[in-house]
């Protein structure tokens, strides 16, 4: 993969390899944390009669802030800005290339590197790690819930696992299209040499790494405190106001790390928006963008606007916890430091104003990718290009107008329910357009049943179940019964796992050859496909039944009346997990020993397949000029591909 660059500089000395790198970043990060922690202990703790109620939390937060600074210095994030600021000049082309990792071999993957392809690979690896750990959480959850009774862990440990599974998966899924594919694929797709803001791009990844590290430290925080007081998180990923104020010290780490990850997402989102708006090459009109670009564009719009609301929420919770404000401290009497009089609904509204668009952040790129893949593997133009775009952008607009449906039973603004019920049900119309395009495109196609195509078809099947169960929840009377129960769990897993995660698998199988230079193993891919889909569908249908029965969600233990569906769900969840394990094995195996990929193994027409593999540092020797769209398949119109530099774009190879 790094062969092209290895040729440039055959040798490195140890200093070049290690400084700056993630190793120095980690060392300076730890040093920063210790300094911050020590400083608070020495100078802020002094003067209090005793270490105040939030003393440990303050030490933790100041430590995290200095750790972040140390990490950024250590990986080289400040090196070039300082070089130029002090020299008071713009970097020349060669310096830009060096910042982008030119001539640094594999080390460039372990330091602050601006090349969008390096950042894309970094994101891919991090996202896979997060998915793996989140999947481990799923395994632990289903193991506990296999039978009634507290089988394996005490309830506070279970709640911690549920919370971490939820948030880790959300962070992973929010990132898993915009991160790897928005970075690696989108700039090439639109004919650009890099993202609009390459250093901002590297920064958004650099922020996500410490966020994940801090997040993973949560189970070890507060362990020394007595059982039930400190350890772990009792909040769920929704992290609502009062309980997030009350729960142990892990909540401070949670708030800080998710705040960091949210900031990273906002920066990434803005970068993607600006890149798509401003960096399209000549002839790459809005009507010639591949659907993937539209999906990621819509998703980035939602991230940039919606995540701000959640980061605000987390910031307020952090202030409540660490500096004794009372945004969510509802207690009327006030406590020893005078907190009280907050509002419990504020947190829910800040959260869901982000939380609902957020599910479309996850699914919109999948819409785009699925439409793309179905067109490519059916060898047909999209059934309706503008219809698909209207579908995606319609969801973007509507998704900000529906969040109150998470408050249907909260008692907040019940007089608004009639309106939010309407907007929620309306969102099925643009979603339906996406399905119309997908089904119309596959119809009468020359369907090439590859692994990515299979996952794209599975997306349709699974997501429609998620959509239809969503209709039940959009209806206030039915929601009053189903809200907060396992039915909801089943519903959103059908959209996010059955839908988006299958879309992500499709995308990985599809772009893996371009990103790594190797094909993924198809035989393992099919095993993965069948295990994952059979396991997923049966497991979550069983969970749906448990929800209809009246089983609340996020419970560590349950009434034996729910035993049968839970046992079925656990067994088939293991099947799903086995399938995903095959996928992880396949990624590692194929990356190391997979078959070498041709430049355009799928015969696709979009630009990223017209450049060589591995993709050169600046993507294109000459910036291409686009004269036709990416879907010019079909007889007889597409006898000649319309993209210049496209060597035999028509079903090449």
């Amino acid at each position: 993969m790094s062969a092209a660059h290895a040729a440039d500089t055959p040798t490195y000395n140890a200093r070049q390899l290690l400084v700056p790198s993630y190793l120095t970043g980690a060392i300076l990060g730890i040093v920063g944390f210790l300094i911050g922690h020590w400083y608070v202990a020495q100078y802020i703790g002094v003067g209090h009669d005793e270490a105040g109620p939030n003393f440990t939390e303050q030490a933790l937060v100041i430590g995290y802030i200095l750790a972040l600074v140390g990490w950024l210095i250590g990986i080289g994030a400040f090196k070039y800005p300082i070089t130029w600021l002090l020299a008071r000049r713009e970097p020349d082309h060669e310096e830009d290339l060096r910042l982008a990792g030119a001539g640094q071999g594999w080390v460039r993957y372990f330091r602050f590197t601006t090349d969008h392809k390096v950042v894309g690979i970094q994101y891919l690896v991090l996202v896979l790690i997060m998915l793996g750990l989140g999947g481990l959480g799923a395994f632990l959850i289903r193991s506990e819930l296999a039978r009634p009774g507290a089988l394996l862990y005490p309830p506070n440990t279970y709640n911690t696992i549920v919370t971490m599974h939820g948030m880790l998966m959300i962070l992973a899924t929010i990132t898993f299209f915009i991160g790897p594919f928005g970075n690696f694929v989108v700039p090439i797709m639109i004919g650009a040499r890099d993202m609009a803001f390459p250093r901002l791009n590297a920064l958004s990844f650099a922020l996500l790494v410490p966020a994940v590290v801090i997040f993973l430290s949560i189970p070890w925080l507060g362990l020394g405190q007595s059982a039930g007081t400190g350890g772990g998180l009792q909040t769920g990923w929704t992290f609502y106001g009062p309980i997030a104020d009350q729960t142990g010290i892990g909540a401070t780490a949670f708030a800080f790390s998710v705040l960091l990850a949210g900031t990273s997402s906002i920066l990434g989102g803005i970068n993607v928006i600006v890149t798509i708006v401003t960096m399209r090459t000549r002839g790459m009109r809005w009507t010639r963008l591949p659907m993937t670009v539209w999906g990621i564009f819509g998703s980035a719009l939602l991230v940039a606007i919606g995540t701000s609301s959640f980061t605000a929420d987390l910031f307020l919770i952090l202030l409540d916890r660490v500096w004794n404000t009372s945004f969510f401290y509802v207690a009327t009497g006030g406590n020893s430091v005078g907190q009280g009089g907050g509002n419990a609904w504020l947190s829910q509204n800040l959260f869901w104003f982000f939380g609902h668009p957020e599910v479309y952040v996850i699914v919109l790129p999948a819409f785009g990718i699925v439409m793309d893949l179905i067109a490519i593997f059916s060898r047909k133009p999209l059934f309706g290009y503008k219809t698909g775009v209207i579908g995606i952008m319609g969801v973007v607009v509507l998704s900000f107008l529906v969040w109150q449906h998470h408050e249907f039973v909260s008692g907040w603004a019940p007089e608004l329910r009639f309106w939010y019920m309407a907007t929620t049900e309306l969102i099925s119309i643009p979603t339906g357009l996406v399905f119309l395009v997908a089904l119309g495109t596959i119809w009468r196609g020359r369907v090439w049943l590859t692994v990515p195509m299979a996952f794209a078809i599975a997306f349709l099947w699974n997501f429609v179940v998620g959509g239809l169960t969503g209709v039940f929840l959009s209806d206030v009377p039915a929601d009053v019964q189903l809200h907060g129960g396992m039915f909801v769990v089943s519903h959103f897993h059908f959209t996010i796992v059955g839908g988006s995660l299958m879309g992500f698998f499709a995308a990985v199988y599809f772009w893996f050859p371009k990103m790594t230079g190797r094909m993924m193993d198809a035989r393992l891919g099919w095993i993965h496909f069948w295990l994952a889909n059979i396991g997923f569908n049966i497991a979550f249908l069983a969970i749906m039944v448990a929800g209809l029965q009246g089983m609340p969600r996020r419970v560590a233990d349950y009434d034996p009346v729910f035993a049968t569906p839970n046992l079925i769900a656990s067994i088939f969840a293991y099947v799903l997990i086995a399938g995903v394990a095959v996928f992880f094995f396949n990624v590692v195996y194929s990356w190391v020993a997979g078959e070498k990929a041709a430049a355009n193994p799928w015969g696709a027409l979009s630009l990223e397949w017209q450049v060589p593999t591995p993709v050169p540092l600046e993507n294109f020797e000459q910036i291409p000029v686009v004269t036709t769209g990416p879907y010019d398949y079909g007889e007889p119109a597409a006898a000649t591909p319309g993209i210049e530099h496209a060597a035999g774009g028509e079903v090449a190879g």
Partner: protein
Amino acid sequence: MSDAQPPTTPPAPTVAEARGSIRRAVLYWAILTVVLELAFILLAPYLTAWQILPPAAGDRSDEINTVMWLFSVLSLPVFAMVVVFALYSASAWGSRARPRAQGPAMLVSSRFIGWWLAISVVLVVFLYVYGLAFLAQVDARPTSNVLRVSVNGEQWLWNYSYPQYGDVGGSELWLVVNRPTTFTITSSDVQHSFWIPAFDIKQDAVPGEPTSISVTPKQLGDYQVRCAELCGIYHSYMETPVHVVTQDVFDAQVANLPPAAPPAASSLVPIQLATSAQAVVPRRDTAGLAEG
């Protein structure tokens, strides 16, 4: 290439074949829809008996079950359409081999989109109007012969008291069959959610913001209140029984209830299980979890 490549690929479908396939696919769609609908409609009456739906013991339960029944009936054709058209295409024209030719350049017509949108809009409007009709019932509050119950959630108990009966109460809920009941719900610490699945009612208990919901129990029997909002360590054990009894039994029961303890002062302290005065009632074989 990792995909196997047999020497031949299927020939391109002709227009006549395409017409035939649309007829076949629509037929399969119809068949699958009828099969699913029949299976669902025949099995639906037994769902309560098989405990897949909770007992329909509240006055709105039947209506909510009807809503869900109707949504299911309307959902099945949509589900069948996606499945049939996707899988038909994959099986009729799919091949593991790389295609040597291309598909027809079909584009959707505005008339087709018009019909598609029209049908979607009609469905959505129907669902909406139908939901609105029941929304009024969800919000309806009875006015005569109302039993008023104050509900207070605290970690991890439900406390009930009866303002019309001298504020007596306890942690088990007693209701009168066929007597309209209005709950006023609040919380001492964090959010909880007051859910009685058998009555199809749910309302969050929000600290500092009293909420309310009404129901009329229709069947004698014992049911469960379950907390539906993650509220801390013992969230899953925050369940208490509901006894629906006749007015006579209720009167006798209430006469024996002690005065309800005043709701705990609204407080939010770090949980100290070891010293907590709040009893955690293990309702199943999970002894050893309760500390208080």
